[in-house]
């Protein structure tokens, strides 16, 4: 007994650095029988479908396209086919242009330093772009956003920083322990996840000019 498989679905495609990308699918019912999945893709201007080059690197139910298989500004038509002994079922086509699915990894090495000089006291934040992202050649241009709150506080304050990888925060409350995170995005794409948290305990007594 058993049934042909249900219709699977491509649920998401993502590129971390506009050089490679991964697509994931969601299986449907397997009809009670062993079911295997085959992903096919066709690029603009190509007549026939090709099969997924790498089912492993992206984890279960995924297909990973390395640099050799990735073109930008080209529409990929991606489908996945579920097959078991009683038949097969193919997903609706999922159209994707790698230029518009870039979600970078979070920034790294976020450091916080309290600067106490005569003319100004401020918190100096420094971070680095995610290692995978080729910012150096200009292939990827990242803009950043940071958020900060007192460790005990509920509400994050979000500050859009723009292109730089350091920031000076002037107006903070003395004696408070703050937690900070930073994230990035490229060309109106998706924001990365927030970086891991960094903490700093501000010195108790500093009075701005009375």
């Amino acid at each position: 007994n058993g049934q042909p498989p249900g219709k699977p679905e491509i649920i998401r495609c993502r590129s971390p650095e506009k050089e490679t990308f991964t697509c994931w699918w969601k299986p449907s019912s397997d009809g009670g029988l062993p079911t295997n999945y085959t992903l096919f893709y066709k690029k603009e201007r190509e007549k026939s479908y090709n099969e997924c080059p790498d089912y492993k690197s992206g984890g279960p139910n995924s297909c990973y396209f390395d640099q050799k298989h990735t073109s930008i500004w080209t529409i990929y038509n991606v489908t996945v086919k579920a097959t078991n002994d009683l038949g097969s079922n193919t997903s609706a086509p999922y159209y994707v242009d790698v230029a518009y699915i870039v979600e970078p990894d979070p920034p790294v090495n976020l450091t916080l330093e309290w600067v106490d000089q005569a003319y100004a006291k401020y918190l100096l934040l420094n971070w680095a772009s995610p290692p995978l992202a080729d910012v150096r050649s200009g292939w990827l241009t990242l803009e950043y956003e940071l958020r900060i709150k007192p460790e005990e506080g509920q509400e994050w304050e979000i500050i859009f920083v723009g292109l730089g990888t350091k920031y000076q925060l002037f107006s903070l409350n003395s004696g408070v322990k703050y937690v900070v995170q930073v994230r990035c995005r490229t060309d109106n794409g998706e924001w990365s996840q927030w970086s891991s948290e960094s903490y700093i305990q501000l010195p108790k007594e500093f009075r701005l000019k009375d």
Partner: protein
Amino acid sequence: PICPNGSDSCQVSLGDLFDRAVKLSHYIHSLSAEMFNEFDERYAQGRGFIAKAINSCHTSTLTTPEDKEQAQQIHHEDLLNVVLSVLRSWNDPLLHLVSEVQRIKEAPDTILWKAMEIEEQNKRLLEGMEKIVGRVHPGDIGNEVYSTWSGLPSLQLADEDSRLFAFYNLLHCLRRDSHKIDNYLKLLKCRLIHDSNC
């Protein structure tokens, strides 16, 4: 003060020219992306336009780098010419887009304003690119290669679905090509001004 020693050596530096060109190309692309998204949400939901939009940009006849490796291997003179060709290919369609958008039923002002702003800024970026090419290769204002556009009749079709698809396709191609231009210019700037060490 600019031009401390008089007018003969007095010109905008290549670095400043690239800074302004990149700022402008970034701005044009973000406007194009917003305009496409706005049109897509308002007029294209559930019509399956994306499937028909495949391989139908008037600029697809131009050979352009399609990944990082190609973009980094191409000589900067050729990449500058690619940018010029793509920009020139959009002068005509942008001109008509502005007038035709006004005929779309209940076209929001935001789409119309963006179409006008992009048309204006595209001309400005083309002026800048011709200046940059002339500075990088004196005497050369770049090849005159560009793709002609013959899409005006389709923007004026009586059948609404076909006409809306024509707009969808044009805005989709504009988003794509403005992203290419922005990306190529950022590469060129890092290569020529910052020795590939941005």
